[in-house]
C-alpha cells in the first residue's frame, strides 16, 4: 500500500459524511501523514447529496481527479453510484445497503432503483465492491446514527487505506459527538468485524465474495 490514497465519501445530508471525512483526515494527521480534506457544507443537513474527499499524501489540492479515487465509502447506494466517475479501476468501494429514497423521486412517482443494478454499475468500474448492512450494524451497536462509524470501521477492517487502525479508532473516540464513546467504539468494532470477515460482506447478490473485476 503506497502512502498516498484518495478517498471519496458520499452520502445524504444528515448521514455524517463530513464527520466521517473529518475522522479520516484527523486520523491521517495523527498518524503523521500529509492530508487534505475537501468538503462543502451549508445545505448538508437538509437531505441533499453530500460528498467529501480525503487525500492522503503530499497533495496540492483536495480535488480528486476523475477516475482516480482509490477508496469510495458510500453511506447510501444511490450516492455511491453517483460518484462512479471518480472511481479508479483499482478502487475499493464500500456501500451501505440501506437506501434513502429521494423525496424528489417520491414526488415524481418513481421507485428506488434495484440495489443489484447499482452494485453492478459500480463493479463495472471498480476493482472491489463490498456491500454492507452498516445501518443495521449501527443499530445493533446502539445508535443508527453511527452508520458512518461502522463504515469507517469496515474501512479499517479491510485495510483499505494507509491509515493505521488505532489512529482511526482514536479519531472516532476523540470526535466531538453527543453519542457515548463506548457506543461509538462498539460501532467501529462492528464495522471492523464486517470488514475483516468477508463472510459478513455481501457483494453483487452473492453471499460470500466481494463483487468487482478482481
Amino acid at each position, binding site marked *: 500500500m503506497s502512502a498516498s490514497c484518495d478517498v471519496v465519501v458520499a452520502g445524504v445530508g444528515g448521514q455524517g459524511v463530513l464527520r466521517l471525512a473529518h475522522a479520516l483526515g484527523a486520523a491521517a494527521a495523527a498518524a503523521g501523514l500529509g492530508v487534505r480534506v475537501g468538503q462543502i457544507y451549508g445545505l448538508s443537513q437538509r437531505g441533499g447529496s453530500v460528498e467529501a474527499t480525503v487525500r492522503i499524501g503530499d497533495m496540492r*489540492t483536495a480535488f480528486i481527479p*476523475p477516475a482516480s479515487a482509490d477508496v469510495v465509502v458510500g453511506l447510501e447506494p444511490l450516492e455511491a453510484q*453517483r460518484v462512479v466517475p471518480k472511481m479508479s479501476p483499482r478502487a475499493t468501494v464500500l456501500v451501505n445497503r440501506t437506501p434513502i429514497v429521494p423525496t424528489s423521486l417520491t414526488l415524481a412517482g418513481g421507485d428506488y432503483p434495484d440495489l443489484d443494478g447499482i452494485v453492478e454499475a459500480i463493479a463495472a468500474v471498480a476493482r472491489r465492491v463490498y456491500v454492507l448492512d452498516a445501518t443495521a450494524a449501527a443499530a445493533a451497536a446502539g445508535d443508527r446514527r453511527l452508520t458512518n462509524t461502522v463504515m469507517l470501521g469496515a474501512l479499517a477492517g479491510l485495510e483499505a487505506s494507509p491509515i493505521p487502525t488505532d489512529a482511526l479508532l482514536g479519531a472516532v473516540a476523540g470526535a466531538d459527538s453527543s453519542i457515548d464513546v463506548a457506543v461509538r467504539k462498539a460501532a467501529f468494532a462492528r464495522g471492523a468485524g464486517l470488514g475483516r470477515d468477508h463472510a459478513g460482506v455481501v457483494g453483487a447478490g452473492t453471499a460470500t465474495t466481494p463483487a468487482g473485476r478482481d
Partner: protein
Amino acid sequence: MTVDTRVLLSGNEAIAQAAVEAGVQVAAGYPGTPSTEILETLARHGEIDVRWSPNEKVALDVALGASLGGVRTLATMKHVGLNVAADTFMTAAYTGVGAGLVLISADDPGMHSSQNEQDNRFYARLAGVPLLEPSDSLEAKEFTKLAFEISEEFDTPVLVRTTTRISHNRGVVTTEARRVRETLGFSRDPSKYVMIPAYARRRRPVLLERLEELTTYVEESPLTADIAGDSTVGVVTSGIAYRYVREVIPGARVLKLGITHPLPMDRIKSFAAEVDRLFVVEELDPFLEDALRAAGIDVEGKAFFPRAGELSPDAVRKGFAAAGVLEAPAPVPEPPATVVRPPLLCPGCPHTAPFLVLKRIGAVVAGDIGCYTLAALEPLAAMDTCVAMGSSIGMAVGLAASGGTEKPVVATIGDSTFLHGGIPGLIEAVYNEADVTVLILDNGTVAMTGGQEHPGTGVTLQGEDTRPVDLVALCRSVGVDDVRVVDPHDLAATYREIEGAIAHKGPSVVITNRPCVVAPTKVKDHPFTVVAEACTACQLCMTAGCPSIVWTDETFEGRRKVAIDTTTCTGCTLCAQLCPPRAIVLDPEWEAPGRG
C-alpha cells in the same frame, strides 16, 4: 487550542487560530456560509469577546470601534455580507485603525449556498485597502496573522478574502502560542475619526499615500513568490487558483500573489518580460487580468478560463489545453443517470405549513434568505422572489405599490433575517401605508447556517443568557396595529391568522413561533404511521413535501398509497391534519426514549 501542535484545520478554523495567536480581543460577525465557523471556533477559546451582531454592518462598526479602542479586532462575514457592511468599510479606509483590524470576506464561487457569486476582491480596490488571498488552511492562518501586522504598520483595515474551498477544506496547520500585546487604549483624534467633509478631505490623500507605501511593501513581500519553472509559460495567479495551476501544469513558472491589492506591478512586469507566454489564472472575474492589461502587459486569461462558477483542476487543464499549452484532457466519463437529490425542508419543519397556506390562498410571496427559500421549489412552490437579506418586505411594498397584481402580497422572512435587515422594510410599510402582510417565520435560530444564536434567542454566541428582542412589541412599536402570533403546526389556525391578516387593511404581521426541529434542540416526538386499510390514496399529504412520507406498493382505485418512515418522522402532526380519512395516526409501536 493547544500550543505548537500539528492539527487538521479547515480554513475557517485556521483563521480563528490566527486570531487567537495574534492576540485578537474582540471579534464580531454575522453567520453566513462559508464564513460561519470562524467565530464559532473562536468563541470556544473563552478569553476573547466574540459575538454575533444583528448584521454585518453593525459587526464592522463594533470591530472598528474596538480597534479604535486599542485592541486587535476581527470581523467576519460572507461575501454578500460585505455589501451590508460596505458603508462602514469604505470610510474605515479613511479613518484607519487603532489596533489591527482585519475583515474576512468569505466568497462563494459556484454559489454553493449563496444568491450570487460576486468577486469581493473589487472591494479592496474600491476602498483602497490591502487584500490578502490565502490558498489553503496553512496560509489562511499565516496570512491572517500577517494581516494584523500590516493593519498596524500601515494604519489601515485589511481585507482577507477566502473562498468556499479555502474556508471549508481542511489541511494540516501548525499552531503557536497566543500573544496579546498591551492594550493601546483609545486616543482622541477627531481629525482622524470624525469624517466630516473637512476632515475626510484631509484623509483622502493619506489613503492614497498609504497605497503607494503598501505597493513598495508588496513588491518586496515574500508573499509575492516567483516559483521557478520552464519560462515558455508564465502564470500569474492567487488563492485557490494557484493550487490548481501547480497541480495541472507543475512545470510552468508561476508568480504567486499572496497580496492582490495593491499589486506589485514592477515584479509582474519583470516576470512578464522573462516568460514567452503570460497567463493569468483566477477564479471569477478578471480582477488581476484587467489590472495587468491596464498596466500595458500583454496577457491571456479569461479567453481560456471560465468567468462563471468555480475553477477546478479540470477547468484549468481545459483552459491550458484550449490555449495550446497542454494536451487536451482525456474525456471524463459521463456521470451515471442517477436520480437527483436536492436539499429539502426537514420532516416537521415549522416553515412547511405557512407555505402550504400561502399556496392555497394564491398570494404573491416576496421571500427572503433562509431555509424557507426552499419553499420556492416543488412541491410547495410558493415563493415568487428572493434577492437579499431583508429584501422581502420592501419588495412586497413595491409589488403592492405597483398595482401589478390583484392577489394579496405577502412577505416571508425568518426571525434572524428580520432583525438583520427586515425592520427598516417594516417601517417603510407603516410609514408609506402599504397593504401588505409580513410573515415572520420565527424558528428561534439562524437555521440555514447550522443553528446560530441571534438577538431574538436570548442567548449570546458565548452561550450566555441575554435579553431577547420581543418581536411582537417591536412590530407594534413601529406602528403595526395587526400583529398575530400562531403555532405553525396548527394548520387551521395558521390559515385563519394569515387570512385574517391579509383581510386587514394596511400593514399586518403574523409571527409563527414554532422552534426549528434541528437546532438548538433536535426534535423527535411521537411519530405517526399510516393505517393502510384506511388510506384512500388521495395523496394530499404528499403536497407537504415531507421526506418521511413514502409510497407503498398498495393502491386504492389505481392510485398509490403512502407510508411514513417512523425513524425520521418528528411527529409534527401536519400530515395527520391534512389527511381526509384520518388514516394517519400516532404510531402505536413507538416507545419514547427513556420510557421504553
